């Protein structure tokens, strides 16, 4: 055992050197350092663990949706796009596979029609092409805050291309894909969104009414370069409030313990 009094100065130096190196490596990896720009999700528990404190701009992100079709992942994607659009005061582009995207529903997540441009491309190659073009177009001064495409299969090389395009353009580039097809990629974050049974409406007043309440999602941050994987259960409280930790999770968050322990969290 070394006495702290003797060791402290050198340990500090070491730590500082290590931090500088880490920041340097991050900058090289393209996940920012000092100059990283990010759009906060507005939920401190989530933003705290993300590099840059939110959805990083100029980077590639993935949102996975579970095999059984539902709209939870779409809702979360709409929410992220709306946040980015609001922060940049610019529209976003959603590249869809089929024509089923329904703007009246998206508007409920803040993605109002004045913020949204839709491109419909049934062929996968066209969607990838459009995504890269749009990601790069920001370079030319296009006021696009974020681009999202529904892409099932993607190899590592393609994901690297997209990440570079995102870096060049400066907009957030999102992929919406089915969970079962997700392979390796260079995305900065990978989210998985699944529906959870929501709260019944008007539970606050003590009476449980039959009926559909607010959406509740199980949000899993499966991968995060420069951050830690984590998971949360969140409620969508409408555009005014945004996301909030589900009531039964708030206590755990306040005590400083994440609900799900992850490898990284344990290591730390």
């Amino acid at each position, binding site marked *: 055992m070394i006495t702290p009094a003797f060791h402290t100065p050198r340990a500090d130096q070491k730590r500082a050197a290590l931090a500088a190196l880490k920041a340097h490596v991050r900058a090289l990896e393209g996940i920012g350092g000092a100059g990283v720009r990010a759009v906060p999700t507005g939920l401190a528990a989530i933003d705290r663990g993300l590099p840059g404190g939110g959805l990083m701009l100029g980077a590639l992100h993935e949102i996975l949706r579970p095999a*059984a079709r539902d709209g939870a992942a779409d809702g979360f994607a709409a929410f992220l796009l709306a946040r980015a659009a609001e922060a940049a005061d610019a*529209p976003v582009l959603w590249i869809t596979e089929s024509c089923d995207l329904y703007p009246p529903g998206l*508007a409920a997540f803040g993605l109002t029609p004045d913020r949204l441009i839709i491109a419909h491309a049934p062929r996968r190659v066209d969607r990838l092409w459009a995504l890269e073009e749009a990601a790069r177009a920001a370079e030319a001064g296009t006021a696009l805050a974020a681009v999202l495409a529904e892409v099932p299969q993607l190899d590592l090389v393609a994901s690297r291309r997209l990440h570079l395009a995102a870096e060049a353009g400066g907009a957030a580039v999102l992929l919406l894909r089915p969970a079962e097809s997700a392979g390796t990629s260079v995305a900065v974050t990978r989210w998985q969104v699944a529906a959870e049974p929501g709260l019944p409406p008007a539970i606050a007043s003590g009476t449980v009414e039959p*009926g*559909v309440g607010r*959406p509740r999602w199980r949000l899993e941050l499966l991968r995060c370069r420069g951050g830690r994987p984590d998971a949360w259960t969140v409620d969508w409280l409408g555009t005014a409030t945004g996301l909030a930790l589900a009531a039964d999770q708030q206590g755990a968050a306040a005590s400083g313990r994440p609900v799900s322990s992850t490898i990284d969290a344990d290591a730390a």
Partner: protein
Amino acid sequence: MSRRILALWLPSLPTDRVHRQGGVEGGRPLVTVTGDRGRRIVTGVDDAAAAAGLFPGMPLADARALEPGMQAVPADPEADSRALRDLACWCGRYTPWAAPHGGDGILLDITGCAHLFGGEADLARDLSARLGRLGFLSRLAVADTAGAAWAIARVGSGHGWRGGALEAAVITPGRSREAIAPLPVAGLRLDAATVAALERAGLSRIGDVQALPRGPLATRFGRRLLQRLDQASGAEAEAISPLKPVARYRARLAFAEPIGRTEDVEAALDRLLGLLCRDLEQAGLGVRRAELTLYRVDGAVARRSIGTSVPMRQPAGLFRLFRDRLEGLDAGFGIEVAVLSADAVEPMAPSQPALDQAAAERGGRALAELADRLALRLGQGAVFRPAVRESHWPDRAVARQAAVAAPSAETWPADTPRPLRLLAQPQPIEAMAPVPDDPPILFRWQGRHHRVARADGPERIAHEWWQDAPRRPARDYYHVEDADGRRFWLYRDGPYDPERPCRWYLHGLFA
């Protein structure tokens, strides 16, 4: 400046076309034949057949007797006219005003463009030589009017030639009337009956007719004769209607050596855009639609067009639009001439926006350019901005606006829940709904059972009777959440009716 018209005649178009398409032997005489009331008549002969004494109009049997070694193919007037149209198209390398005329001729208005080719005679020689290399025999003449040029090309002295050098008949400006005077009246583009009548009257030369008083001529031979005379002399104007409207703004490049590599084509495009955009800048215009026409050595013509949603005249932006279209371009043996035309233009402010607006405007322009590029590949209408439409029918509540349209702050009413995904076709589901007017308690969709845990509804949405077939039942929509928390938009087609089974559909997905 008087107009100058080049008339081109392809005397053996049918056989030349067959030779060019291949599939026949080169050396043997070739004729095309058509059936006429049970007889088979020769309609076209090639050089070898003509040399053997065959001529159009003779029965096939006679032709066979004269030249047993000949080969006959069925005449195909449609293919001939297609070939003629393609050739007229290709003549666009000389002038935009080129149009097929009759079944075997092309008229070119070469006013003001002959100097690009070293004069009218050189232009005619070049045209004829190129046609010869493509395998088409041609005769041509240049005069002030289409009528005169046509007459000289058809019935003037001189011979057709196949790529050989023969003085093209170029009539000096203002002398067309005299030039056609010695020619037979068949050169007046009249029907055979009128020609025969003129000849019977002893009027065999155009000059004979020109010398006569007009009144009696008209009563005896019809007004058409006077019209043809006037058209030949220039007293009556005759328009050449080009295959496609001729753009006011165009740029043209000819290459000393045919080009084929993508980089060379792109470099040419770059230069053409520079030329075109300079003209547009001076005129205060921007492009809405432009077309790049590439004339290949082998006579084929490749066209690539682009459209923009806002007027544009930045060469770089237009270049990017075109570059996407050049993918898969087949240059064949090379491209000789490239023409860029602005087919639709619109006024556009000079490019000096105020400083504070500059960035926003650049952003808007770049967005418009991106939208155009996406639309070029994905199809018109595939890139759009959604907008509110006043309709309570779910499928009709979204209007599509151009991506560059000014965004409207209006949004849909928030009081009724709407799904994030609305299936294009509602999918039938097997549902168990034991209580009338209640949502189902269990349903099956995509092979999966969903137990309904919570539900809202019904929201009754009636068909818009002014849009739909009458008397279709209203739909009762339910917003349901299954035991796993997944939320769906279901509806029952029509109100509950004990007389008939209920049909349930899944129409949308909620978050």
